[in-house]
């Protein structure tokens, strides 16, 4: 159909129909948006159990995740929700570990001048343990497990006693010097609620950080956990972490 063949009446009809279609459609869309739930209900959240995989064989220690986390969550200076550790083992089996400023500016110099036999990076973050020591010890119940398996802190309720900081075996918690309350990784709870990945997962250029729903049998994280061999940090403490480390070396604690 050629546009020049359409007469004026037909053109107006088409215009009217299409614009009214847009109007009705947008009305429908707007009305739909108003009905749409901002927050998932408790039962909805029970369909999720967020887990995390760190592939230490892929991490290159660039520190993008640490920077992304700092910006996304306004983490105060010299405190870390996530950081990257570097392990270097030389020919004499001497182990050197460092994490200068949490690897915020990546790693500048080698620990050993020569003879480095083995070296690898290990990103760390809150393990969101199933039997978390930190939530057990919180005297006021400000630290809790969300229904979708994330360990969170109610900052309106926390008294800042620091008991949870002591109880966490992984050094993942700190007292926010400005707010005076405990703080830690939330898996970017404000992002994952809307289906987005945590900032560190987004920022990783090597896909060393994988995040997903452990309750979904088809999720990527479940596939990885079924196919690969992984380790946990300090499994003897019985905290049952939900942060799984692929290629975990015995030197990592």
């Amino acid at each position, binding site marked *: 159909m050629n546009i020049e063949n359409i007469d004026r009446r037909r053109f107006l009809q088409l215009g009217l129909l299409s614009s009214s279609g847009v109007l009705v459609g947008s009305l429908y869309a707007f009305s739909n948006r108003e009905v749409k739930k901002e927050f998932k209900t408790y039962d909805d959240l029970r369909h999720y159990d967020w887990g995390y995989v760190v592939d230490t064989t892929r991490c290159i220690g660039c520190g993008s995740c640490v920077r992304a986390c700092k910006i996304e969550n306004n983490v105060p200076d010299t405190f870390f929700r996530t950081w990257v550790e570097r392990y270097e083992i030389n020919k004499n089996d001497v182990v050197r570990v460092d994490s200068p400023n949490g690897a915020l500016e990546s790693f500048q110099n080698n620990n050993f001048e020569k003879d480095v036999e083995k070296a690898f990076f290990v990103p*760390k973050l809150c393990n969101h343990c199933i039997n978390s020591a930190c939530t057990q010890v919180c005297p006021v119940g400000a630290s809790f497990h969300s229904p979708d398996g994330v360990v969170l802190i109610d900052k309106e309720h926390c*008294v800042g006693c620091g008991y949870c900081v002591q109880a966490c075996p992984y050094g993942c918690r700190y007292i926010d010097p400005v707010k005076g309350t405990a703080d830690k990784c939330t898996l970017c709870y404000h992002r994952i609620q809307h289906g987005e990945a945590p900032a560190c997962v987004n920022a990783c250029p090597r896909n060393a950080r994988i995040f997903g729903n452990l309750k979904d049998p088809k999720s990527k994280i479940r596939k990885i956990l079924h196919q690969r061999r992984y380790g946990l940090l300090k499994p003897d403490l019985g905290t049952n972490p939900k942060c799984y480390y692929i290629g975990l070396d015995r030197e990592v604690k």
Partner: protein
Amino acid sequence: MESFNGFVFPNELHITWTVMIVLYPYITGMVAGAFIVSSFYHVFGMEKLKPIAKYALVSSFAFLCFATVPLLNHLGRPTRAFNILLTPNFNSAMSGFGFVYMTYMVIVVLEIWFSYREEFIKRYHQSDGIVKFIYSIIILRNTNVNENTHKYDKKMIVFLGGLGIPIACILHGYVGFLFGSIKANLWWSTPLMFIIFIFSAIVSGLAVLIFLYLFVHWRRKLKINQDSIDLMSKWLWGFMIIAVTLELMEILSISYERTEKWAILQHLINGKLKVSYLYLQIGLFSIGPFILLSITTLYKRLNVNFRNFLIWLSSGMLLLQVLFMRWNVVIGGQLVSKSMRGFTEYFPGFMDREGLIVSFLLILTPFILLRAFDKLFPFFDKEQALNK
């Protein structure tokens, strides 16, 4: 494989529990210890300790009034402190704190009230004006003093004292449990911790009572009740032996087991805590008082004044021993990295909110309060002391 190189997790560069948390168990230790000493007479009927029973009770109260101040100073959000009573999480060892503390406070206040009721009534009759009014409120406008009320008061004191002993043990043993139950901390995590805390509490309680008693009597040139002091110094000797033995047994068992935690803890003992733990806590302030108290206890022919001086000196040293023990537990435990690969640094600073000057003032205030309490509840029987 040599793997010791000084790595700490980035968040561990900051010490979370400062010198304030050192002071809290130190002060509650004296609270619990002094109360238990007062119960020696009130409940167990040790007549020789009668002259110090009231003094011990009031001291316990003076320390109790200030026990929470370091905690409030340390809290990140002190205005929310009452959350611990309003929304307690009973899975947490810390959540019972408010309840135990309040129960204990009620017991101590009631026991003091029953102990001093007759004294208050006497003062009510002697005073006039506003003071009389205040006393009338304190005695609840009840001026009955006779054989029956005396018996009843006595009965209540025995009951409260008996009830207070387990509560005092819970108050302090549970502070030890608070540390001992942290599995993440290699230096704290031991079931012995709360037993050590109870015994060190009794040591510090006895020590502070002897120290103050001798000091005040020397300053005021009052007659010292030698029987009480000798008995108390013997108790101090016995309890310090148990406390120090337990402290050493704990290290011995960690060392002998040679698990992976010993690999790092031996560097803690020989490194960061060498002076405060090995030289001061164990060396000077444990072995020193042990020798001095052995002399005063076993060698009877010692000149009385010299013996009292040695007892006074060793009780002062034991007060420092307990202070160092609290420091070495609370701070020492946090110096070890949870990565088991290194240590962090800590110095409280002088002028900081949680610094040394504030700590010093906080330790001093209960003593000033005790001085003021002496006016309100006279605990040294002055007439008796002067007549002797």
